[in-house]
């Protein structure tokens, strides 16, 4: 099989709305088809008596309660385990209370600057985000055209696919020494690692998107005698955009994971190095706070990409 089909590229296919829709049951109402009716003749107990109508408001309240209670229970469980670790295994892991106190301290002054190597956690996150966005932007700028070429031309696909396949499973951190050698500086090397991280999903998904364009769309373009530029702008780009955005979403979330590790190795300002630095100072509470913050930023990035995807994806609007 020569087609690139990444799992994540499978887009939701919207089913066509039928010309005449089936009657929709209202709350408490049942639709009895003739066949079902025949099977159940005569109903022993009136259906209504079995399931008393539940008001919509109560159903909603129950759903909200579940959404709070269930995750809350897991959270409590984690706290208990955490305290047990503190009490029974090693007291180097601070208690939740101590960690909370440290968090209040850290977030009380997120943007202080006490010297080039001593800045608030807000700056650390911003520096890391800056590197991620730079590497990610470069990867998108290079990956989309390359993906387009690979999707549109059999020869380019055949030429590049083996290389992509070999390099894609390599941990991007393995490229860090190469970056350090080539760029002779830490910052560009970290950005380079993010670039490598981000580029594969963009290329693979863009190429798959171009290959998945129905032939009919291109036939429409031919009948209309659209030029090359018009075809790209009016057909290829909008048709592949959902795939491209899927690739970008995958890239960004992995990039955010990789930057922490990369910064641990390169040093400088950044949330990854912050974690490493606090480890050297045996400030474990700070590390736990940083872990929580890294997760939160990851969620924000993910939701931003989801928002973009919803906005541009005609399948989801």
């Amino acid at each position, binding site marked *: 099989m020569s087609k690139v089909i990444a799992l994540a590229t499978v887009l939701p296919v*919207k089913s*066509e*709305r*039928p*010309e005449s829709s089936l009657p929709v049951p209202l709350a408490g109402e049942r639709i009895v088809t003739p066949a079902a009716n025949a099977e159940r003749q005569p109903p022993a107990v009136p259906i209504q008596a079995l399931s008393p109508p539940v008001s919509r408001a109560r159903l909603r309240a129950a759903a909200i309660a579940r959404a709070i209670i269930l995750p809350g229970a897991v959270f409590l469980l984690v706290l208990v385990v955490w305290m047990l670790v503190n009490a029974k295994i090693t007291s180097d892991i601070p208690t939740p209370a101590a960690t909370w106190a440290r968090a209040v301290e850290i977030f009380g002054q997120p943007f202080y600057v006490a010297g080039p190597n001593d800045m608030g956690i807000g700056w650390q996150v911003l520096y890391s985000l800056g590197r991620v966005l730079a590497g990610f932007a470069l990867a998108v700028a290079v990956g989309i055209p390359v993906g387009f070429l690979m999707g549109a031309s059999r020869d380019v696909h055949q030429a590049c696919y083996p290389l992509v396949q070999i390099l894609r499973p390599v941990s991007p951190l393995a490229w860090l020494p190469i970056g350090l050698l080539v760029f002779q500086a830490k910052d560009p090397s970290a950005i380079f690692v993010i670039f490598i991280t981000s580029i594969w999903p963009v290329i693979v998904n863009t190429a798959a998107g171009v290959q998945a364009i*129905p032939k*009919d*769309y291109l*036939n*429409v373009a*031919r*009948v*209309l*005698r*659209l030029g090359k530029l018009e075809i790209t702008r*009016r*057909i290829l780009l*909008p*048709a592949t*955009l959902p795939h491209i955005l899927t690739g970008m979403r995958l890239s960004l979330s992995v990039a955010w994971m990789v930057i922490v590790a990369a910064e641990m190795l390169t040093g400088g300002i950044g949330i990854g190095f912050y974690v490493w630095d606090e480890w050297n100072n045996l400030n474990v509470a700070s590390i736990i706070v940083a872990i929580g913050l890294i997760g939160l930023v990851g969620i924000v990035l993910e939701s931003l990409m989801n928002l973009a995807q919803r906005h541009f994806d*005609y*399948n989801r*609007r």
Partner: protein
Amino acid sequence: MSYLNISNVDVVFPTNNGAFIALREVHLEIEKGEFIAIIGHSGCGKSTVLNVVAGLLEATRGGVLLENKEVNSPGPDRAVVFQNHSLLPWLTVYENVRIAVDKVFGKSKSKAERHDWTLHNLRLVHMEHALDQRPGEISGGMKQRVGIARALAMQPKVLLMDEPFGALDALTRAHLQESVMEIQAALNNTVLMITHDVDEAVLLSDRIVMMTNGPAATVGEILKVDLPRPRNRLELADDPTYNHYRAEVLRFLYERQRRPEAA
């Protein structure tokens, strides 16, 4: 010389198991304003014929002449209604037609005229109520209507339709057939339509072209349908002439061109 001339067309596809002769010596002459239905078993080569006329596929031998000019590439003078509607899903109903109008009349019509012409064609197919919907939000029948509007809006010399209603349920199909008859009566388009529905062929067309089974499919018989227009499907249901035509086509398909695997 006829308006549209499909002249001794052969189509050979190169395949992994050698050359596959899809069409041999397909010859057909169509007059201006004629409604032609091509019928034949699935896989015999109907779409191949239509694609050659559309210019989407090159004939291996022979060729197609439209108004005495050879067809060698696709163009809006031979608008195609595809089986799978092929609307662009990121454009609204209006934009799907407008893109064709802008392309074909970008130089000859003003912006306001193009807007009006877009609306006019959507009105023809009774889709003026859904201008801002996207293809994903309308039914299969509606999509096909928009596809027809897009094709009509190009003011084609020949309207090509490849099993336009094949994917629709019977009731929706009947509605669309009525619309097509209505439009054809008003505009007198030259239409080449592929179908596998015998009733549809007899109801809509002036002549029915019956194709033999492939490989090397060709025109088997041509049946002239001499029924007055406008035609009404209810009245025709008991009409002996109509039923005679129907029987002729059925006989061709199920006696003379019976598919080997169906035997």
